[in-house]
């Protein structure tokens, strides 16, 4: 460092730190009072060496210049020329080599005189190895008239002329773990350099069409997509340009919304929802002849009820999680009073369908003229649908809950829209209703038949309730109770461990256990290692934490540690082959 300082003293306008030589340039030997003129930091790199751009990419450090200016002087920060991509697999950095000028503007004071401007430049110079460079640089400039150009004037003008200019209008969208920039035109060789240090270094065209080109930049681990993407776009044969665009939700988000909508449609066929929906349709048939406008009003109110109820559930869950509760979707089936109430409700609806009493009819607002009745029957549909959403859509909704709040609410909204869609469509187009059978005695028969799934749902809920109130110990000698310590011990012993994260109220868990995990060949394979059962029927924070560690918020989850190795999660719907393959069995 002493040698460096000495060199700086001996040679005031030039300093070297090995492979890079630094100097300050001015376009004026004499600047007019108050004149703003071009200046710059020149870095001359030895072949193979480079310094870094504003966003250095995967490694490196942006070059800095700190001025110590005499009174009355001011300096703008330098403007970054378009960088080059420096590739050293697996890393990509952004920077410069060769003879580089980082241009900037200086403004002289209004009083004439001689000045010595000083600045400290700091950079990182790298070839295979990296060396930090630092130089204290001097720039003598006279202020007076007439203004006189220095020999460096043309070089600085050229540096300014080569800077990136305003570019074409572009758009950007968010995808899973990346942001995609869409530029007009066909540019197979285009490169994009993001200003924000949120991305991995590599980026290149991912889709080149005749009219537009898409470039994808991968987000760094843990980085959230920014609301705006900006940077330098370099197209072969064109001057570099600066582009910026708001980042819109991408196709990935739309796809999730579509699946949520389809899931909502399916929900109508679930044993707990179908009877309620049927009642609504029957009520509509009975009132056939009522005005179309009134029917539409009912449809809209019902849809609003469904969507609001789903949003309220999602919001309650988000709020509980924000407050630190370890809840996942299906949480409403982890509380005995809630399960008991839902079971009672299902019995009441079933009895009502049998025609034993008519209170429920009014409860569901079928007879109500006011659209308020339809709104609450929408809410009611969600309440009775709740037991079914856990087993059938727990995993998908669990995923939705891990997203930022607006996305979660959007997914639940789409789910509600899907749930409400069939009835809303029927009610809005009386022509569709006319295709249904005419009202008659069959309706009473159908109602009675529909009571069966309601009673079955009630029975299932009672069974869940029984498990909640008296958790049965793992009856099978094969299954050990899960704990993190037990799994650690098993892994340390190099044994193959299988963990079944389950809950009594989770239908797909029960199906997997009965159809796959209890098969003799699967049990035999499990017995050769350790089989652990983590029962989440009752709320257990340790299990919730473990689910979260695997990126889940609900059950089922199946994890295999083969011979004590890394955890591998299995699909939610098991087959014997999937389990045996994962266990390493022939």
């Amino acid at each position: 460092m002493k040698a460096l300082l000495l060199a700086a003293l001996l040679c005031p306008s030039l300093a070297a730190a090995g492979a890079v030589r630094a100097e300050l340039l001015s376009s004026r030997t004499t600047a007019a009072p108050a004149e703003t003129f071009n200046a710059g930091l020149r870095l001359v790199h030895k072949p193979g060496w480079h310094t870094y751009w504003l966003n250095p990419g995967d490694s490196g450090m942006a070059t800095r210049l700190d001025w110590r200016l005499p009174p009355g002087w001011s300096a703008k920060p330098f403007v970054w020329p378009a960088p080059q991509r420096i590739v050293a697999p697996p890393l990509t950095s952004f920077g410069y080599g060769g003879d580089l000028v980082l241009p900037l503007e200086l403004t002289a004071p209004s009083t004439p005189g001689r000045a010595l401007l000083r600045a400290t430049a700091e950079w990182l110079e790298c070839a295979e190895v990296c060396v930090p460079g630092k130089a204290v640089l001097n720039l003598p400039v006279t202020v007076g008239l007439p203004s006189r150009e220095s020999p460096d004037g043309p070089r600085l003008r050229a540096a300014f002329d080569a800077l990136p200019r305003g570019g074409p209008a572009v758009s950007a969208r968010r995808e899973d773990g990346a942001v995609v920039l869409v530029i007009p035109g066909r540019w197979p060789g285009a490169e994009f350099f993001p200003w924000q240090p949120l991305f991995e270094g590599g980026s290149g065209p991912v889709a080149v069409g005749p009219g537009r080109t898409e470039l994808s930049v991968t987000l760094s681990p843990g980085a959230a997509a920014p609301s705006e993407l900006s940077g330098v776009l370099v197209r072969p044969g064109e001057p570099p340009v600066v582009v910026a665009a708001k980042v819109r939700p991408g196709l990935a988000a739309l796809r999730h919304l579509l699946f949520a909508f389809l899931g909502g449609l399916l929900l109508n066929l679930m044993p707990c929802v179908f009877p309620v929906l049927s009642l609504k349709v029957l009520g509509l048939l009975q009132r056939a002849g009522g005005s179309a406008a009134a029917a539409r009003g009912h449809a809209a109110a019902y849809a609003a009820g469904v969507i609001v109820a789903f949003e309220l559930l999602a919001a309650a869950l988000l709020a509980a999680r924000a407050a630190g509760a370890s809840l996942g979707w299906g949480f409403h089936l982890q509380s005995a009073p809630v399960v008991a109430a839902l079971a009672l409700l299902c019995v009441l609806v079933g009895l009502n369908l049998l025609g034993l009493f008519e209170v429920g009819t009014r409860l569901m607002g079928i007879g109500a003229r006011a659209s308020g009745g339809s709104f609450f029957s929408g809410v009611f549909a969600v309440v009775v649908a709740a037991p079914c959403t856990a087993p059938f859509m727990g995993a998908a909704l669990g995923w939705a809950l891990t997203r930022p709040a607006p996305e979660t609410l959007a997914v639940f909204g789409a789910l509600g829209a899907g749930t409400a869609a069939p009835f809303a469509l029927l009610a809005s187009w009386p022509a569709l209703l006319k295709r249904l059978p005419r009202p008659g005695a069959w309706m009473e028969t159908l109602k009675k038949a529909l009571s069966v799934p309601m009673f079955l749902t009630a029975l299932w809920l009672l069974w869940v309730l029984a498990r909640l109130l008296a958790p049965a110990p793992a009856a099978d000698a094969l299954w050990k109770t899960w704990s993190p310590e037990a799994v650690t011990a098993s892994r340390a012993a190099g044994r193959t461990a299988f963990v079944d994260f389950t809950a009594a109220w989770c239908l797909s868990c029960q199906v997997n256990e009965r159809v796959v995990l209890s098969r003799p060949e699967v049990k035999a394979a499990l017995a050769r290692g350790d089989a652990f059962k983590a029962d989440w029927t009752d709320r257990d924070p340790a299990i919730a934490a473990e689910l979260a560690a695997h990126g889940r918020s609900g059950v089922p989850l199946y994890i295999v540690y083969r011979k004590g190795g890394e955890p591998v999660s299995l699909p939610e719907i098991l087959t014997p082959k999937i389990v045996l393959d994962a266990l390493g069995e022939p």
Partner: protein
Amino acid sequence: MNALVLAVALFAAAAPETGKPAPDFTLPGQDGKPVKLSTLKGSWVVLEWFNKDCPFVRKHYGSKNMQGLQKRYAAKGVKWYSIISSKPGKQGHLTAKEAEGVLKDHEMGSTAILLDPKGTVGRLYQAKTTPHMFVIDPKGTLVFMGGIDDKPTADAEDVPGARNHVAAALDEAMAGKKVSVPTTRPYGCSVKY
């Protein structure tokens, strides 16, 4: 070694992610003893990518910042491994014997220096820079990954004013709190694969 390469190949696709299990590995220490991450369950573990000649590493060793952290957390039972993924012939590569010398000369407080000359574990963790830091909880979950602090320079004068992300993550996580900054951008020299 074949098993290790296989294990690496199997999990190469899965980028390390905070909140997820830290990828397992086995590497020899400078003392010749193998270290297997999954057998360290029950302990807090810090992984530090190391290259003694990198100016950014020298910033933290010259200022004794790194040794201070190593010793402070060793006293709390944290296992701290400095990993060298430099290829033989490239900057920062050390033989086991040389690493033993560096451990003493640099007055390092690391539990061991781990030797990864093939870069398999570096690639497994997608280690980009020296230093690049990882904090793993006693359950084997990665709770922090990224740069050592928020002043991405090679200047030792920037150490005192910086927020040390590793110390913050360890202090928060060991107190049972959520790590407030679980992922940061690593800075430094590129790992010399």
